């Protein structure tokens, strides 16, 4: 019934994902070829943020409901993987509050990642069950309240998290390429979700909640599904964060990270996957450029050096400018368009014969 072939249709369908994967691949390959360890670490760190931002996007972008409290799932994932991968001897002395089976556990990093992300998802699920019946603003505040709770618990639960001290000794298997592969997986999860009937139903509620309900969308359930999936993906980001740095501090999972990840999403455009990805790339690149300029950069024969702290100010101005002149973000809520023209119109000429007509309708519910 479409005027295009099935292969072209599939290519078109997955182009928004494929194009973003391609952009990331180019960045990673170029940085890898540059041989700069520092650059590779910057990109790896950026890609971890990308995973977190895509995770936040899964809920926030599709539902239109702000989530201020997503970083807590990153923390849950990070600490869970520490519990499962640290050396048992280390845990016996530093984290004596852990149950015996966790102290003895030393799991494969992949298994640990999945389990840790599942724990984050489970916590997100339980919270979602409780809060998703209320209105969007109340949900936003509730996500923040839950984050503050989790943060305080982890900060004081010394025998399990070391409280305000740092946990060290996580196996550091994560480099730029590892994060890149996981970023692809996470983007694929987000994209498949968003084109699924669940994602479509949730986006309908974002556009008009009343109409969505009238057309059979259980907004509560759809929000719970998205928030749980979001917790899973953000949890993956937390796991990778832990194994990238090898060290964990509760303080790291608080307002600053919340702000920067939300800023990335909003600057890129929170209503599309491309917006999430582009926002991370733009903010990461801008931050890096200004940081270099604070250190001083020679362009031609003149040394340009910005005073310390200017980086944050310029970044703030940049964000304000984007919000004022392009409130829907850089991508304006769109995915990257298929480069070979818009979809062809559906072929007409079958009017009056309707397969979904009377007969089928009668057998309906």
């Amino acid at each position, binding site marked *: *019934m479409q005027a295009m072939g099935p292969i072209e249709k599939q290519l078109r369908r997955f182009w928004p994902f494929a194009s973003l994967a391609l952009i990331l691949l180019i960045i990673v390959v170029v940085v890898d070829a540059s041989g700069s360890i520092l650059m590779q670490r910057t990109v790896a760190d950026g890609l971890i943020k990308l995973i977190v931002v895509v995770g936040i996007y899964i809920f926030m972008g599709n539902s239109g409901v702000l989530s201020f409290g997503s970083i807590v799932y990153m923390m849950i994932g990070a600490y869970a993987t520490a519990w499962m991968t640290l050396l048992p001897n280390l845990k016996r002395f530093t984290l004596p509050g852990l149950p015996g089976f966790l102290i003895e556990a030393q799991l494969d990093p992949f298994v640990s990642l999945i389990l840790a992300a599942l724990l984050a998802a489970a916590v997100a699920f339980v919270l979602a069950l409780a809060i998703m019946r209320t209105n969007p603003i109340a949900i936003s505040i509730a996500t923040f309240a839950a984050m503050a709770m989790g943060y305080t618990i982890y900060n004081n639960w010394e025998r399990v998290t070391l409280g305000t001290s740092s946990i060290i000794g996580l196996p550091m298997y994560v480099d730029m390429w590892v994060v890149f592969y996981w970023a692809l997986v996470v983007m694929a999860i987000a994209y498949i979700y968003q084109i699924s009937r669940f994602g479509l139903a949730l986006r309908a509620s974002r556009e008009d909640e009343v109409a969505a*309900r009238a057309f059979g*969308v259980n907004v509560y359930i759809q929000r719970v599904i998205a928030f749980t999936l979001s917790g899973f993906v953000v949890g993956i980001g937390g796991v990778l964060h832990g194994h990238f740095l090898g060290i964990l501090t509760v303080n790291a999972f608080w307002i600053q990270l919340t702000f920067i990840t939300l800023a990335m999403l909003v600057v890129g455009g929170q209503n599309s996957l491309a917006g999430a990805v582009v926002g991370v790339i733009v903010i990461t690149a801008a931050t890096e450029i200004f940081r270099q300029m604070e250190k001083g950069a020679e362009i031609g024969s003149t040394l340009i050096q910005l005073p310390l702290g200017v980086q944050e100010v310029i970044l703030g101005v940049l964000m304000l400018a984007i919000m004022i002149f392009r409130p829907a973000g850089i991508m304006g809520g769109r995915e990257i368009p298929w480069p070979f023209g818009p979809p062809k*119109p*559906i072929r007409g000429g079958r009017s*009056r014969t309707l*397969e979904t*007509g*009377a007969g089928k309708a009668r057998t309906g519910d």
Partner: protein
Amino acid sequence: MSEAATKGSNGELLEARDISVHFEGLAALDGLSVSLDRTEIFGLIGPNGSGKTTLVNVLTGFQKATAGRVTLSGRDITDWPPYRIGRAGLSRTFQAVRLFRDLSVLENLEIAGVGHGLSRRAAEKRAVDILEWMNFEHKAYDLADTLPYGDERRVGIGRALASAPQFVLLDEPAAGLTDAECDDIMQLIARIPADFGCGVLLIEHNMRVIMGVCGRIHVIESGQSVAEGPPGDIQSNPDVIRAYLGSKPQDA
């Protein structure tokens, strides 16, 4: 029960019995009963504020009735939430249209199918069929936000049909349309019962539309029933004329 309730072709009725809605003592609806089957277009008219939209909201679960029952093909749906009523086969349009603005026309229709429990693929197929039925397939990929007003209203009707409803409630589908657009909408509405096996409850101020497509018309005023019958009877009914003109003939 009115005589109309028993003449249904297959006994599948949308029925509201003795519906009352009180807002802090003010009666928006006062013991109203209507009933329609899946083969007919049933008009609901009345002056502004007479309770037409309140009735639609009660039928679709958006407004709780203070008293009375709503049944759909024998099932009592009175206290069901809107999404459940939508899935059970009762679909609607909105006076304010309420399209999903940042989604394409095709997606707008797909959501109705998806909400009804179809897979995305099946929902897309049904959406395409309905767009072709409306001769609107050329705008399938346009964003709903970019449509002119008249097209918005048509897409609203298409979306209401995309969930394969047993009954569809059209809340002023012709409001603000030009005469030519009204003709298009009337043709579209007139084909719904035969092509979809779906009864239509039509609320409209435009008398040309109401008289042109409805088999039966129910008139309400101040939440109460004034008259019910075929268009010819309604047009000459003195109670209806009084309800609309609001004064005695000798004063006019």
